[in-house]
């Protein structure tokens, strides 16, 4: 990274993938080629901008072991994300990073992993999934369960990855939607009510949760009741951010900054922090 942590570098948009097609959500994945390689760890994030419109925060969504480009998965919400969604392949985004702590992948070694994700929450966990499924890393981790939740069948992202992920050794993918629709033959209902039906060893599992705040709370409680200790339940938080550097004062929870000390926290750490998130 440049000595000046505010200074972004240009990243050419190589490809844009429309992820969801539902009316309530417009999510696209941007495959970018930054001017210089950005090395990152799963769970870290970037500040990404459209000059003249502004900067926003996005988690890396791609395989950290692939060095010739990065992917960001972006939901159209407000000003900046709207402007990003107007761009086409060949246009430029400006990015700075990586920021944040990332997942403690070494600490996870030797454990089974259970991912519970809601909607866009799969995006910041995808680098971790790709990392542990990489052929050089797969043996370091045990059984992998994924409970992927979305509001409707049209709201799932990265569906083109599921078969490849499921074909790896001991990987089990479950999908659930909020309410039944004709033709849907997978789970229906919230993940916190479903994970108890899935076979896993609470004593040796790392629980990973990403989604809206309520989903984090409910699933952390569910994991806890199924025997996963709070120092083995991890989540990644979303707070409003401006700088990513622990300076602008936006993202603190108590004395900790989500942009520096997070965005990845264990439930044990969160339990010890003021509940302001």
């Amino acid at each position: 990274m440049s000595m000046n942590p505010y200074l972004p570098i240009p990243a050419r948009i190589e490809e844009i993938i429309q992820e969801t097609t539902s009316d309530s959500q417009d999510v696209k994945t941007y495959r970018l080629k930054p001017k210089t390689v950005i090395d990152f760890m799963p769970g870290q994030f970037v500040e990404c901008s459209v000059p003249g419109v502004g900067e926003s925060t996005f988690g890396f969504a791609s395989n950290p072991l692939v060095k010739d480009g990065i992917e960001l998965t972006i939901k159209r919400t407000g000003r900046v994300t709207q402007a990003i969604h107007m761009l086409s392949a060949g246009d430029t985004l400006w990015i700075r990073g990586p920021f944040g702590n990332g997942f403690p992948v070494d600490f996870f070694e030797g454990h089974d992993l259970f991912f519970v994700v809601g909607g866009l929450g799969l995006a910041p966990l995808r680098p971790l999934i790709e990392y542990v499924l990489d052929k050089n890393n797969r043996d370091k981790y045990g059984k992998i369960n994924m409970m992927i939740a979305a509001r409707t069948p049209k709201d799932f992202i990265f569906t083109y990855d599921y078969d490849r992920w499921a074909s790896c050794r001991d990987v089990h993918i479950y999908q659930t939607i909020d309410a039944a629709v004709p033709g849907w033959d997978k789970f229906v209902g919230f993940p916190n009510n479903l994970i108890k039906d899935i076979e896993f060893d609470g004593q040796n599992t790392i629980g990973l949760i990403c989604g809206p705040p309520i989903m984090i709370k409910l699933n952390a409680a569910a994991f806890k009741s199924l025997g996963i200790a709070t120092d083995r339940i991890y989540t990644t938080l979303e707070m409003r951010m401006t700088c990513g550097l622990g300076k602008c004062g936006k993202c603190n929870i108590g004395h900790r900054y989500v942009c520096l000390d997070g965005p990845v926290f264990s439930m044990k750490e969160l339990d010890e922090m003021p509940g302001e998130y």
Partner: protein
Amino acid sequence: MKRIKTTKEAFNKDLAALLDKFDVFAPSTKQGKLDYLNITDPEDITWTDDLPYKSPKETVFPRVEEIMRFTKDDVVPTANVKPVLLLGAKPCDIESFDVFDGVFTSEKGLYIDPFYKERRDKMLIIGSGCAAKKPGCFCDERGYDMTFSDKCDAFVALDGDDMYIDLITDRAEGLFSGSDCPPREVNKAPETTLKIDAHENDIFTTMPWEDWAMSCIGCGTCTYVCPTCHCFDIRDADDKGEVTRCRLWDSCMYSNFTLHAGGTNPRTTQAARYRQRVMHKYVYLRDNIGITACTGCGRCIRLCPGGINIHDTVKDIMGRTGKK
């Protein structure tokens, strides 16, 4: 520490010679209320015991600051401006730069803010003391000597037409002429009696924040006038067809400060925002940089339209957590 004696007239002449090299800021009533203003004539300095109604943080942390400019396929950081000479800074205001240095150049040791650091490295501070406390001031309870601070380059005292200058750092040598005189007698700093020792979790939910913040209208005045408040936003602007990226002051007292695009807001009440202001100063920065970020200048108390008083809040917290 060497002390020299000169006259006000000679001092003004020496200062005038520095105007080319420095942007000089000094207390002045030229625009009405006493404020640290960018002066171009030493005669515009108002020598008084009063405290400027706003803090001097603008001198190194402007309200709006261009930090970079986008060209067609590049981005260029904005070159910094003339060095600042801050003259007549009160001891409390001098303390505030410790907080800024802590946050912008060392907090958690990860990132240095290059825009702040460049301004700060080039800056010269010449302090001046207070003879009396003003209503609302509590620097003494915060452990600061109102008559003097050595956390600056030089310190001046006007006595009639005579001017005494304490030369503290090498950078102050040779700027002003004068004859040597006996060094100043420095007072012992008072004991710090106003501070919070409690852990954040022991006061986060248990204190009557709603009662304390009852009359807060969320105007942000307290944070704008405070010498240690440093929260900011980054916005892009258009300058005759070129895009500039600017940093501007923000305030934790505003309802949208923590509002997410999706509509979630972790701080929904004004009480939660007041708690953030008090705890950021007295607890979070205490833990992160080892400094309580309140100088006791009293500005937020004097200017709050709701009569909110951080001194009384902290005192109350001390009482309720067993520290009188």
